[in-house]
Protein backbone atom coordinates (compact mmCIF):
# COMPACT_ATOMS: atom_id res chain seq x y z
CA UNK A 1 0.00 0.00 0.00
CA UNK A 2 2.20 2.80 -1.19
CA UNK A 3 1.50 6.18 -2.66
CA UNK A 4 0.95 4.92 -6.17
CA UNK A 5 -1.78 2.46 -5.20
CA UNK A 6 -3.43 5.15 -3.14
CA UNK A 7 -3.29 7.50 -6.12
CA UNK A 8 -4.92 5.00 -8.45
CA UNK A 9 -7.66 4.15 -5.98
CA UNK A 10 -8.43 7.80 -5.29
CA UNK A 11 -8.29 8.66 -8.98
CA UNK A 12 -10.72 5.86 -9.76
CA UNK A 13 -13.06 7.02 -6.98
CA UNK A 14 -13.10 10.60 -8.18
CA UNK A 15 -13.48 9.78 -11.87
CA UNK A 16 -16.30 7.31 -11.24
CA UNK A 17 -17.96 9.73 -8.83
CA UNK A 18 -17.81 12.54 -11.36
CA UNK A 19 -19.10 10.35 -14.20
CA UNK A 20 -22.02 9.05 -12.16
CA UNK A 21 -22.82 12.57 -10.96
CA UNK A 22 -22.97 13.82 -14.52
CA UNK A 23 -24.83 10.92 -16.09
CA UNK A 24 -27.24 9.71 -13.38
CA UNK A 25 -30.91 10.32 -14.06
CA UNK A 26 -31.80 10.42 -10.36
CA UNK A 27 -30.64 13.78 -9.09
CA UNK A 28 -30.27 12.75 -5.44
CA UNK A 29 -28.08 9.84 -6.47
CA UNK A 30 -26.16 12.31 -8.59
CA UNK A 31 -25.54 14.61 -5.65
CA UNK A 32 -24.25 11.78 -3.50
CA UNK A 33 -21.98 10.67 -6.34
CA UNK A 34 -20.75 14.27 -6.49
CA UNK A 35 -19.97 14.07 -2.79
CA UNK A 36 -18.01 10.89 -3.41
CA UNK A 37 -16.06 12.81 -6.05
CA UNK A 38 -15.35 15.63 -3.56
CA UNK A 39 -14.18 13.10 -0.98
CA UNK A 40 -11.89 11.42 -3.51
CA UNK A 41 -10.43 14.79 -4.40
CA UNK A 42 -9.88 15.55 -0.71
CA UNK A 43 -7.97 12.28 -0.52
CA UNK A 44 -5.82 13.39 -3.46
CA UNK A 45 -5.11 16.68 -1.68
CA UNK A 46 -4.01 14.71 1.37
CA UNK A 47 -1.76 12.64 -0.88
CA UNK A 48 -0.22 15.90 -2.07
CA UNK A 49 0.36 16.88 1.60
CA UNK A 50 -2.14 19.74 1.48
CA UNK A 51 -4.03 18.64 4.57
CA UNK A 52 -5.67 21.98 5.27
CA UNK A 53 -7.03 22.19 1.74
CA UNK A 54 -8.37 18.67 2.15
CA UNK A 55 -10.25 19.67 5.31
CA UNK A 56 -11.60 22.80 3.67
CA UNK A 57 -12.66 20.68 0.72
CA UNK A 58 -14.67 18.39 3.00
CA UNK A 59 -16.01 21.25 5.12
CA UNK A 60 -17.08 23.48 2.25
CA UNK A 61 -17.98 21.03 -0.50
CA UNK A 62 -19.24 17.92 1.26
CA UNK A 63 -20.67 19.91 4.16
CA UNK A 64 -22.06 23.12 2.71
CA UNK A 65 -22.31 22.87 -1.07
CA UNK A 66 -23.72 19.35 -1.06
CA UNK A 67 -26.45 20.32 1.37
CA UNK A 68 -27.21 23.47 -0.58
CA UNK A 69 -27.65 21.47 -3.77
CA UNK A 70 -29.83 18.95 -1.93
CA UNK A 71 -32.01 21.80 -0.72
CA UNK A 72 -32.28 23.18 -4.25
CA UNK A 73 -33.27 19.76 -5.56
CA UNK A 74 -35.91 19.32 -2.89
CA UNK A 75 -37.31 22.77 -3.66
CA UNK A 76 -37.55 22.15 -7.40
CA UNK A 77 -39.38 19.25 -8.96
CA UNK A 78 -38.49 16.13 -10.87
CA UNK A 79 -36.13 14.37 -8.50
CA UNK A 80 -36.06 11.16 -10.47
CA UNK A 81 -37.46 12.22 -13.81
CA UNK A 82 -39.94 10.25 -15.84
CA UNK A 83 -38.74 7.74 -18.38
CA UNK A 84 -40.24 9.66 -21.24
CA UNK A 85 -38.37 12.76 -20.15
CA UNK A 86 -35.15 13.24 -22.01
CA UNK A 87 -32.15 13.68 -19.70
CA UNK A 88 -29.70 14.90 -22.27
CA UNK A 89 -30.08 18.20 -24.01
CA UNK A 90 -30.61 18.69 -27.75
CA UNK A 91 -27.01 19.34 -28.67
CA UNK A 92 -25.56 16.65 -26.45
CA UNK A 93 -23.76 14.90 -29.27
CA UNK A 94 -21.87 18.02 -30.29
CA UNK A 95 -21.30 18.75 -26.60
CA UNK A 96 -19.58 15.41 -26.20
CA UNK A 97 -17.46 16.06 -29.29
CA UNK A 98 -16.43 19.48 -27.97
CA UNK A 99 -15.60 18.01 -24.56
CA UNK A 100 -13.43 15.37 -26.21
CA UNK A 101 -11.72 18.01 -28.34
CA UNK A 102 -11.01 20.16 -25.31
CA UNK A 103 -9.65 17.11 -23.54
CA UNK A 104 -7.23 16.43 -26.37
CA UNK A 105 -6.21 20.08 -26.53
CA UNK A 106 -5.45 20.09 -22.81
CA UNK A 107 -3.73 16.74 -22.99
CA UNK A 108 -1.43 17.47 -25.94
CA UNK A 109 0.96 19.87 -24.23
CA UNK A 110 1.05 17.67 -21.14
CA UNK A 111 2.02 14.60 -23.11
CA UNK A 112 4.64 16.54 -25.04
CA UNK A 113 6.11 17.82 -21.80
CA UNK A 114 6.17 14.44 -20.04
CA UNK A 115 9.89 13.80 -20.63
CA UNK A 116 10.55 17.26 -19.23
CA UNK A 117 8.40 17.11 -16.13
CA UNK A 118 9.08 13.52 -15.27
CA UNK A 119 12.19 14.53 -13.44
CA UNK A 120 10.38 17.16 -11.44
CA UNK A 121 10.20 15.22 -8.19
CA UNK A 122 8.43 16.79 -5.21
CA UNK A 123 10.68 18.91 -3.05
CA UNK A 124 11.25 17.56 0.41
CA UNK A 125 9.43 20.35 2.07
CA UNK A 126 7.82 18.50 4.93
CA UNK A 127 7.36 21.52 7.09
CA UNK A 128 8.74 21.17 10.55
CA UNK A 129 6.13 23.42 12.04
CA UNK A 130 2.45 23.36 11.46
CA UNK A 131 1.63 24.01 7.84
CA UNK A 132 -1.74 25.36 8.97
CA UNK A 133 0.12 28.02 10.92
CA UNK A 134 2.20 28.89 7.86
CA UNK A 135 -0.92 29.21 5.78
CA UNK A 136 -2.52 31.45 8.42
CA UNK A 137 0.46 33.80 8.54
CA UNK A 138 0.56 33.96 4.75
CA UNK A 139 -3.12 34.81 4.65
CA UNK A 140 -2.65 37.69 7.06
CA UNK A 141 0.69 39.05 5.82
CA UNK A 142 0.65 39.44 2.02
CA UNK A 143 -2.92 38.44 1.21
CA UNK A 144 -4.92 40.51 3.66
CA UNK A 145 -6.49 42.58 0.85
CA UNK A 146 -7.56 39.42 -0.96
CA UNK A 147 -9.17 38.12 2.19
CA UNK A 148 -11.08 41.35 2.65
CA UNK A 149 -12.24 41.39 -0.95
CA UNK A 150 -13.28 37.77 -0.58
CA UNK A 151 -15.27 38.61 2.55
CA UNK A 152 -16.99 41.41 0.65
CA UNK A 153 -17.73 39.07 -2.23
CA UNK A 154 -19.20 36.45 0.07
CA UNK A 155 -21.42 39.03 1.78
CA UNK A 156 -22.56 40.36 -1.57
CA UNK A 157 -23.24 36.82 -2.79
CA UNK A 158 -25.24 36.06 0.34
CA UNK A 159 -27.38 39.17 -0.04
CA UNK A 160 -27.78 38.49 -3.75
CA UNK A 161 -28.82 34.91 -3.12
CA UNK A 162 -31.39 35.93 -0.55
CA UNK A 163 -32.79 38.61 -2.83
CA UNK A 164 -32.97 36.30 -5.83
CA UNK A 165 -34.70 33.58 -3.87
CA UNK A 166 -37.14 35.99 -2.20
CA UNK A 167 -37.98 38.00 -5.32
CA UNK A 168 -39.40 34.83 -6.79
CA UNK A 169 -41.63 34.39 -3.81
CA UNK A 170 -43.07 37.89 -4.13
CA UNK A 171 -43.93 37.38 -7.80
CA UNK A 172 -45.42 34.01 -7.00
CA UNK A 173 -47.75 35.64 -4.53
CA UNK A 174 -48.79 38.06 -7.23
CA UNK A 175 -49.51 35.16 -9.57
CA UNK A 176 -51.61 33.43 -6.99
CA UNK A 177 -53.85 36.44 -6.48
CA UNK A 178 -54.61 36.77 -10.17
Amino acid sequence: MNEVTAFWILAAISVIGALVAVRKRNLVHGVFALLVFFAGLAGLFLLLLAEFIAVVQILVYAGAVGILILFAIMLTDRVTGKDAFRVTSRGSFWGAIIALAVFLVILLPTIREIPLIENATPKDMIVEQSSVKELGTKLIEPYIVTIEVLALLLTAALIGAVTAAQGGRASEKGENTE
Partner: protein
Amino acid sequence: MNWELIGDILLATVPLLVIFPSMFALTTWVERKALARIQNRIGPNKVGVPLTPYGGNLSLFGLGQPAADGIKMLFKENIVPTGADRLFHLLAPILSLIPAMLVLCFLPLEFPWLNGEQNSVKAFMLDGAVIFFFAITGLNTLAVFMAGWASRNKYSLLGGMRAIAQMVSYEIPLVLSAVVVVMIVGSLNAAEIAEAQAGWNWYVFQPWGLAAFVIFFIAALAETNRSPFDLPEAESEIIAGYFTEYSGFKFALFFLGEYIAMFAISGLAVTLFLGAGGGPGVEALPWLKVIWFLAKVCILIGVMIWLRGTLPRLRVDQLMGFAWKFLLPLSILNIFIAGFAWHAKKANEGTAVSVIVWVAALIILYAAAKGLDHVNRAKVKPRTYQYGE
Protein backbone atom coordinates in the same frame (compact mmCIF):
# COMPACT_ATOMS: atom_id res chain seq x y z
CA MET B 1 4.28 -4.78 6.04
CA ASN B 2 5.22 -2.65 8.96
CA TRP B 3 3.93 -4.71 11.83
CA GLU B 4 5.08 -2.24 14.44
CA LEU B 5 3.08 0.53 12.85
CA ILE B 6 0.01 -1.67 12.68
CA GLY B 7 0.45 -2.57 16.33
CA ASP B 8 0.71 1.10 17.23
CA ILE B 9 -2.40 1.91 15.25
CA LEU B 10 -4.30 -0.85 17.03
CA LEU B 11 -3.05 0.40 20.39
CA ALA B 12 -4.35 3.86 19.58
CA THR B 13 -7.70 2.93 18.08
CA VAL B 14 -8.92 -0.20 19.81
CA PRO B 15 -9.34 1.51 23.21
CA LEU B 16 -11.57 4.10 21.54
CA LEU B 17 -13.65 1.35 20.00
CA VAL B 18 -13.96 -0.36 23.37
CA ILE B 19 -14.47 2.57 25.72
CA PHE B 20 -17.05 4.59 23.85
CA PRO B 21 -19.48 1.83 22.80
CA SER B 22 -19.43 0.46 26.34
CA MET B 23 -20.06 3.95 27.62
CA PHE B 24 -22.96 4.09 25.16
CA ALA B 25 -24.45 0.95 26.64
CA LEU B 26 -24.17 2.31 30.14
CA THR B 27 -25.55 5.69 29.10
CA THR B 28 -28.73 4.20 27.68
CA TRP B 29 -29.33 2.54 31.04
CA VAL B 30 -28.45 5.68 33.02
CA GLU B 31 -30.65 7.77 30.81
CA ARG B 32 -33.66 5.50 31.22
CA LYS B 33 -33.15 5.33 34.96
CA ALA B 34 -32.63 9.07 35.36
CA LEU B 35 -35.57 10.05 33.19
CA ALA B 36 -37.75 7.59 35.08
CA ARG B 37 -36.70 9.02 38.43
CA ILE B 38 -37.28 12.55 37.20
CA GLN B 39 -40.82 11.48 36.33
CA ASN B 40 -41.20 9.65 39.63
CA ARG B 41 -41.07 6.24 38.07
CA ILE B 42 -38.67 3.40 38.80
CA GLY B 43 -37.23 2.63 35.40
CA PRO B 44 -35.71 -0.62 34.22
CA ASN B 45 -34.90 -2.76 37.24
CA LYS B 46 -35.63 -6.35 36.30
CA VAL B 47 -33.12 -7.46 33.72
CA GLY B 48 -30.00 -8.76 35.35
CA VAL B 49 -28.00 -11.91 35.52
CA PRO B 50 -30.22 -14.99 35.46
CA LEU B 51 -28.98 -17.39 38.13
CA THR B 52 -30.85 -20.50 37.00
CA PRO B 53 -32.75 -21.30 33.84
CA TYR B 54 -35.91 -21.47 35.93
CA GLY B 55 -36.14 -18.06 37.49
CA GLY B 56 -34.07 -16.58 40.21
CA ASN B 57 -32.53 -13.38 39.05
CA LEU B 58 -29.75 -11.13 40.24
CA SER B 59 -31.27 -7.92 39.01
CA LEU B 60 -28.45 -5.44 39.80
CA PHE B 61 -30.77 -2.43 39.33
CA GLY B 62 -31.59 -3.59 35.81
CA LEU B 63 -28.05 -3.33 34.54
CA GLY B 64 -28.74 -6.17 32.13
CA GLN B 65 -31.08 -3.90 30.20
CA PRO B 66 -28.54 -2.65 27.63
CA ALA B 67 -27.50 -6.22 26.84
CA ALA B 68 -31.13 -7.26 26.50
CA ASP B 69 -31.83 -4.28 24.24
CA GLY B 70 -28.82 -5.07 22.13
CA ILE B 71 -29.80 -8.69 21.68
CA LYS B 72 -33.34 -7.67 20.85
CA MET B 73 -32.11 -5.20 18.23
CA LEU B 74 -29.81 -7.77 16.66
CA PHE B 75 -32.51 -10.37 16.23
CA LYS B 76 -35.24 -8.10 15.00
CA GLU B 77 -36.36 -8.37 11.43
CA ASN B 78 -34.83 -5.97 8.96
CA ILE B 79 -37.76 -4.25 7.25
CA VAL B 80 -37.23 -2.14 4.15
CA PRO B 81 -40.26 -0.26 2.77
CA THR B 82 -41.41 -1.25 -0.70
CA GLY B 83 -40.70 2.05 -2.41
CA ALA B 84 -37.44 2.66 -0.61
CA ASP B 85 -34.09 3.20 -2.23
CA ARG B 86 -32.51 0.00 -0.96
CA LEU B 87 -28.88 1.02 -1.34
CA PHE B 88 -29.24 4.37 0.40
CA HIS B 89 -31.49 2.85 3.03
CA LEU B 90 -28.65 0.49 3.88
CA LEU B 91 -25.87 3.08 3.62
CA ALA B 92 -27.47 5.78 5.76
CA PRO B 93 -27.04 4.18 9.21
CA ILE B 94 -23.47 3.18 8.39
CA LEU B 95 -22.71 6.69 7.18
CA SER B 96 -24.13 8.16 10.36
CA LEU B 97 -21.92 5.99 12.54
CA ILE B 98 -18.64 6.40 10.64
CA PRO B 99 -18.15 10.19 11.10
CA ALA B 100 -19.10 9.92 14.76
CA MET B 101 -16.54 7.16 15.33
CA LEU B 102 -13.93 8.90 13.19
CA VAL B 103 -13.89 12.15 15.15
CA LEU B 104 -13.20 10.28 18.38
CA CYS B 105 -9.56 9.99 17.37
CA PHE B 106 -9.18 13.78 17.39
CA LEU B 107 -9.91 13.94 21.12
CA PRO B 108 -6.76 14.35 23.21
CA LEU B 109 -7.22 11.15 25.17
CA GLU B 110 -3.71 10.47 26.43
CA PHE B 111 -3.69 6.78 27.12
CA PRO B 112 -0.71 5.79 29.29
CA TRP B 113 0.48 3.25 26.73
CA LEU B 114 0.61 5.94 24.04
CA ASN B 115 2.85 8.34 25.91
CA GLY B 116 6.10 6.57 25.10
CA GLU B 117 8.39 8.26 22.61
CA GLN B 118 8.74 5.10 20.58
CA ASN B 119 5.05 5.13 19.68
CA SER B 120 4.60 6.73 16.30
CA VAL B 121 0.83 7.04 16.23
CA LYS B 122 -0.65 10.05 17.88
CA ALA B 123 -3.94 10.74 16.19
CA PHE B 124 -4.71 13.78 18.27
CA MET B 125 -1.42 15.41 17.33
CA LEU B 126 -2.90 16.07 13.91
CA ASP B 127 -2.60 19.68 12.90
CA GLY B 128 -5.98 21.24 12.51
CA ALA B 129 -7.71 18.58 14.58
CA VAL B 130 -10.47 21.00 15.56
CA ILE B 131 -11.34 21.91 12.00
CA PHE B 132 -11.14 18.23 11.01
CA PHE B 133 -13.63 17.56 13.77
CA PHE B 134 -16.13 20.06 12.42
CA ALA B 135 -15.64 19.00 8.82
CA ILE B 136 -16.30 15.35 9.59
CA THR B 137 -19.16 16.00 12.00
CA GLY B 138 -20.81 17.94 9.18
CA LEU B 139 -21.04 14.71 7.16
CA ASN B 140 -23.55 13.40 9.66
CA THR B 141 -26.12 15.74 8.14
CA LEU B 142 -25.84 13.92 4.84
CA ALA B 143 -26.49 10.57 6.47
CA VAL B 144 -29.60 11.99 8.07
CA PHE B 145 -30.86 13.34 4.78
CA MET B 146 -30.03 10.04 3.09
CA ALA B 147 -32.08 8.14 5.65
CA GLY B 148 -34.98 10.53 5.33
CA TRP B 149 -34.99 10.51 1.56
CA ALA B 150 -34.34 6.82 1.02
CA SER B 151 -37.21 5.69 3.25
CA ARG B 152 -39.79 7.03 0.76
CA ASN B 153 -41.95 8.20 3.61
CA LYS B 154 -43.26 11.71 4.11
CA TYR B 155 -42.50 11.75 7.80
CA SER B 156 -38.99 10.55 7.19
CA LEU B 157 -38.37 13.20 4.57
CA LEU B 158 -39.80 15.91 6.83
CA GLY B 159 -37.56 14.73 9.63
CA GLY B 160 -34.58 14.67 7.31
CA MET B 161 -35.18 18.18 6.04
CA ARG B 162 -35.72 19.45 9.57
CA ALA B 163 -32.49 17.82 10.64
CA ILE B 164 -30.55 19.40 7.79
CA ALA B 165 -31.93 22.88 8.46
CA GLN B 166 -31.24 22.56 12.16
CA MET B 167 -27.75 21.11 11.86
CA VAL B 168 -26.62 23.65 9.27
CA SER B 169 -27.96 26.53 11.35
CA TYR B 170 -26.42 25.41 14.62
CA GLU B 171 -23.09 24.51 13.09
CA ILE B 172 -22.32 28.22 12.70
CA PRO B 173 -22.55 29.19 16.39
CA LEU B 174 -20.81 25.92 17.23
CA VAL B 175 -17.80 26.74 15.08
CA LEU B 176 -17.75 30.43 16.01
CA SER B 177 -17.71 29.66 19.73
CA ALA B 178 -14.83 27.23 19.20
CA VAL B 179 -12.99 29.91 17.19
CA VAL B 180 -12.50 31.92 20.40
CA VAL B 181 -10.38 29.22 21.99
CA VAL B 182 -8.49 28.53 18.77
CA MET B 183 -7.75 32.25 18.54
CA ILE B 184 -6.41 32.52 22.08
CA VAL B 185 -4.30 29.36 21.89
CA GLY B 186 -3.12 30.12 18.39
CA SER B 187 -3.44 26.53 17.26
CA LEU B 188 -5.98 24.11 15.88
CA ASN B 189 -4.15 21.21 17.47
CA ALA B 190 -6.21 19.53 20.18
CA ALA B 191 -3.17 18.51 22.18
CA GLU B 192 -1.83 22.06 22.22
CA ILE B 193 -5.20 23.40 23.29
CA ALA B 194 -5.22 20.88 26.12
CA GLU B 195 -1.69 21.87 27.12
CA ALA B 196 -2.55 25.58 27.17
CA GLN B 197 -5.15 24.91 29.85
CA ALA B 198 -2.91 22.93 32.16
CA GLY B 199 -3.20 23.71 35.87
CA TRP B 200 -6.73 25.00 36.32
CA ASN B 201 -6.24 27.55 33.57
CA TRP B 202 -9.50 26.39 32.03
CA TYR B 203 -11.13 28.64 29.50
CA VAL B 204 -14.52 28.20 31.06
CA PHE B 205 -13.29 30.38 33.93
CA GLN B 206 -12.91 33.35 31.58
CA PRO B 207 -16.01 35.43 30.82
CA TRP B 208 -15.65 34.93 27.07
CA GLY B 209 -14.85 31.28 27.66
CA LEU B 210 -17.95 30.85 29.75
CA ALA B 211 -20.10 32.53 27.11
CA ALA B 212 -18.48 30.43 24.39
CA PHE B 213 -18.97 27.28 26.46
CA VAL B 214 -22.66 27.97 26.96
CA ILE B 215 -23.15 28.72 23.26
CA PHE B 216 -21.13 25.65 22.33
CA PHE B 217 -23.12 23.42 24.63
CA ILE B 218 -26.47 24.68 23.35
CA ALA B 219 -25.35 24.31 19.74
CA ALA B 220 -23.98 20.85 20.53
CA LEU B 221 -27.38 19.84 21.89
CA ALA B 222 -28.96 20.95 18.64
CA GLU B 223 -26.24 19.37 16.53
CA THR B 224 -26.76 15.96 18.11
CA ASN B 225 -30.57 16.29 17.99
CA ARG B 226 -30.91 16.16 21.74
CA SER B 227 -33.91 17.47 23.61
CA PRO B 228 -35.04 20.29 23.66
CA PHE B 229 -33.86 20.46 20.06
CA ASP B 230 -35.03 16.99 19.04
CA LEU B 231 -37.38 18.24 16.35
CA PRO B 232 -36.08 15.90 13.65
CA GLU B 233 -37.37 12.98 15.68
CA ALA B 234 -40.31 14.66 17.39
CA GLU B 235 -42.58 11.72 18.19
CA SER B 236 -45.69 13.79 18.65
CA GLU B 237 -45.35 15.43 15.25
CA ILE B 238 -43.53 13.20 12.77
CA ILE B 239 -43.47 9.74 14.42
CA ALA B 240 -39.71 9.24 14.66
CA GLY B 241 -38.47 11.54 11.93
CA TYR B 242 -35.79 10.21 9.66
CA PHE B 243 -35.57 6.79 11.27
CA THR B 244 -39.28 6.04 11.15
CA GLU B 245 -38.70 3.25 8.64
CA TYR B 246 -35.71 1.70 10.36
CA SER B 247 -35.84 -1.40 12.47
CA GLY B 248 -33.54 -3.92 14.01
CA PHE B 249 -29.84 -3.57 13.53
CA LYS B 250 -29.98 -0.51 11.29
CA PHE B 251 -31.92 1.34 13.95
CA ALA B 252 -29.36 0.23 16.51
CA LEU B 253 -26.62 1.69 14.33
CA PHE B 254 -28.43 5.03 14.19
CA PHE B 255 -28.88 4.95 17.92
CA LEU B 256 -25.23 4.11 18.48
CA GLY B 257 -24.14 6.82 16.05
CA GLU B 258 -26.23 9.42 17.82
CA TYR B 259 -24.78 8.61 21.21
CA ILE B 260 -21.20 8.37 19.93
CA ALA B 261 -21.69 11.80 18.36
CA MET B 262 -22.84 13.03 21.76
CA PHE B 263 -19.69 11.68 23.38
CA ALA B 264 -17.50 13.14 20.65
CA ILE B 265 -18.96 16.61 20.86
CA SER B 266 -18.87 16.53 24.66
CA GLY B 267 -15.25 15.47 24.36
CA LEU B 268 -14.56 18.48 22.16
CA ALA B 269 -16.29 20.75 24.67
CA VAL B 270 -14.12 19.28 27.41
CA THR B 271 -11.02 19.79 25.28
CA LEU B 272 -11.81 23.37 24.37
CA PHE B 273 -13.24 24.73 27.60
CA LEU B 274 -12.93 22.31 30.50
CA GLY B 275 -9.17 21.76 30.49
CA ALA B 276 -9.18 18.40 28.68
CA GLY B 277 -7.54 15.88 31.01
CA GLY B 278 -6.62 18.44 33.64
CA GLY B 279 -7.62 17.86 37.23
CA PRO B 280 -6.25 17.22 40.69
CA GLY B 281 -3.31 14.85 40.79
CA VAL B 282 -2.42 14.70 37.10
CA GLU B 283 1.13 15.96 37.69
CA ALA B 284 1.90 13.00 39.93
CA LEU B 285 -0.09 10.38 38.07
CA PRO B 286 -0.32 11.13 34.32
CA TRP B 287 -2.71 8.26 33.67
CA LEU B 288 -5.34 10.13 35.66
CA LYS B 289 -5.75 12.38 32.63
CA VAL B 290 -7.82 9.80 30.79
CA ILE B 291 -9.97 9.25 33.85
CA TRP B 292 -10.57 12.96 34.32
CA PHE B 293 -11.34 13.43 30.65
CA LEU B 294 -13.91 10.65 30.61
CA ALA B 295 -15.37 11.85 33.91
CA LYS B 296 -15.90 15.33 32.49
CA VAL B 297 -17.51 13.85 29.37
CA CYS B 298 -19.83 11.83 31.61
CA ILE B 299 -20.80 14.95 33.56
CA LEU B 300 -21.71 16.77 30.34
CA ILE B 301 -23.74 13.76 29.20
CA GLY B 302 -25.47 13.78 32.59
CA VAL B 303 -26.41 17.43 32.10
CA MET B 304 -27.77 16.56 28.66
CA ILE B 305 -29.96 13.86 30.18
CA TRP B 306 -31.07 16.22 32.93
CA LEU B 307 -32.02 18.86 30.37
CA ARG B 308 -33.93 16.23 28.41
CA GLY B 309 -35.94 15.47 31.50
CA THR B 310 -36.62 19.14 32.11
CA LEU B 311 -37.26 21.09 28.95
CA PRO B 312 -40.12 20.74 26.47
CA ARG B 313 -39.44 20.68 22.76
CA LEU B 314 -39.04 23.93 20.83
CA ARG B 315 -41.14 25.00 17.88
CA VAL B 316 -39.44 25.13 14.47
CA ASP B 317 -39.56 28.91 14.19
CA GLN B 318 -38.25 29.29 17.74
CA LEU B 319 -35.44 26.91 16.91
CA MET B 320 -34.33 28.83 13.84
CA GLY B 321 -34.81 32.21 15.47
CA PHE B 322 -32.73 31.15 18.43
CA ALA B 323 -29.82 30.08 16.22
CA TRP B 324 -29.78 33.03 13.86
CA LYS B 325 -30.98 35.90 16.02
CA PHE B 326 -29.54 35.02 19.39
CA LEU B 327 -26.62 32.60 19.27
CA LEU B 328 -25.01 33.92 16.08
CA PRO B 329 -24.74 37.63 17.06
CA LEU B 330 -23.69 36.68 20.55
CA SER B 331 -20.93 34.37 19.36
CA ILE B 332 -19.59 37.01 16.96
CA LEU B 333 -19.58 39.60 19.75
CA ASN B 334 -17.84 37.05 21.92
CA ILE B 335 -14.99 36.77 19.42
CA PHE B 336 -14.45 40.54 19.57
CA ILE B 337 -14.53 40.59 23.34
CA ALA B 338 -12.08 37.73 23.60
CA GLY B 339 -9.70 39.57 21.29
CA PHE B 340 -9.94 42.81 23.25
CA ALA B 341 -9.57 41.06 26.58
CA TRP B 342 -6.50 39.23 25.37
CA HIS B 343 -4.88 42.40 24.08
CA ALA B 344 -5.72 44.37 27.21
CA LYS B 345 -4.17 41.69 29.35
CA LYS B 346 -1.09 41.52 27.19
CA ALA B 347 -0.61 45.31 27.26
CA ASN B 348 -0.43 45.60 31.05
CA GLU B 349 0.08 42.66 33.32
CA GLY B 350 -1.66 43.68 36.51
CA THR B 351 -4.12 41.88 38.72
CA ALA B 352 -6.31 44.98 38.89
CA VAL B 353 -6.39 45.34 35.11
CA SER B 354 -7.25 41.72 34.57
CA VAL B 355 -10.02 41.90 37.14
CA ILE B 356 -11.43 45.01 35.46
CA VAL B 357 -11.24 43.35 32.04
CA TRP B 358 -12.84 40.23 33.46
CA VAL B 359 -15.78 42.07 34.98
CA ALA B 360 -16.25 44.40 32.03
CA ALA B 361 -16.27 41.51 29.56
CA LEU B 362 -18.78 39.62 31.65
CA ILE B 363 -21.07 42.65 31.96
CA ILE B 364 -20.93 43.39 28.23
CA LEU B 365 -21.69 39.79 27.32
CA TYR B 366 -24.54 39.51 29.77
CA ALA B 367 -26.02 42.83 28.68
CA ALA B 368 -25.77 41.79 25.03
CA ALA B 369 -27.46 38.48 25.74
CA LYS B 370 -30.16 40.21 27.71
CA GLY B 371 -30.69 42.77 24.95
CA LEU B 372 -30.87 40.11 22.26
CA ASP B 373 -33.30 38.16 24.37
CA HIS B 374 -35.46 41.26 24.80
CA VAL B 375 -35.40 42.05 21.09
CA ASN B 376 -36.21 38.51 20.06
CA ARG B 377 -38.86 37.78 22.62
CA ALA B 378 -42.24 37.60 20.99
CA LYS B 379 -44.46 40.40 22.10
CA VAL B 380 -47.04 38.37 23.94
CA LYS B 381 -49.64 40.37 25.74
CA PRO B 382 -51.69 38.84 28.49
CA ARG B 383 -54.70 37.29 26.83
CA THR B 384 -58.18 38.51 27.54
CA TYR B 385 -60.88 35.92 27.44
CA GLN B 386 -64.44 36.60 26.55
CA TYR B 387 -67.08 34.25 27.75
CA GLY B 388 -70.52 33.96 26.30
CA GLU B 389 -73.19 35.22 28.60
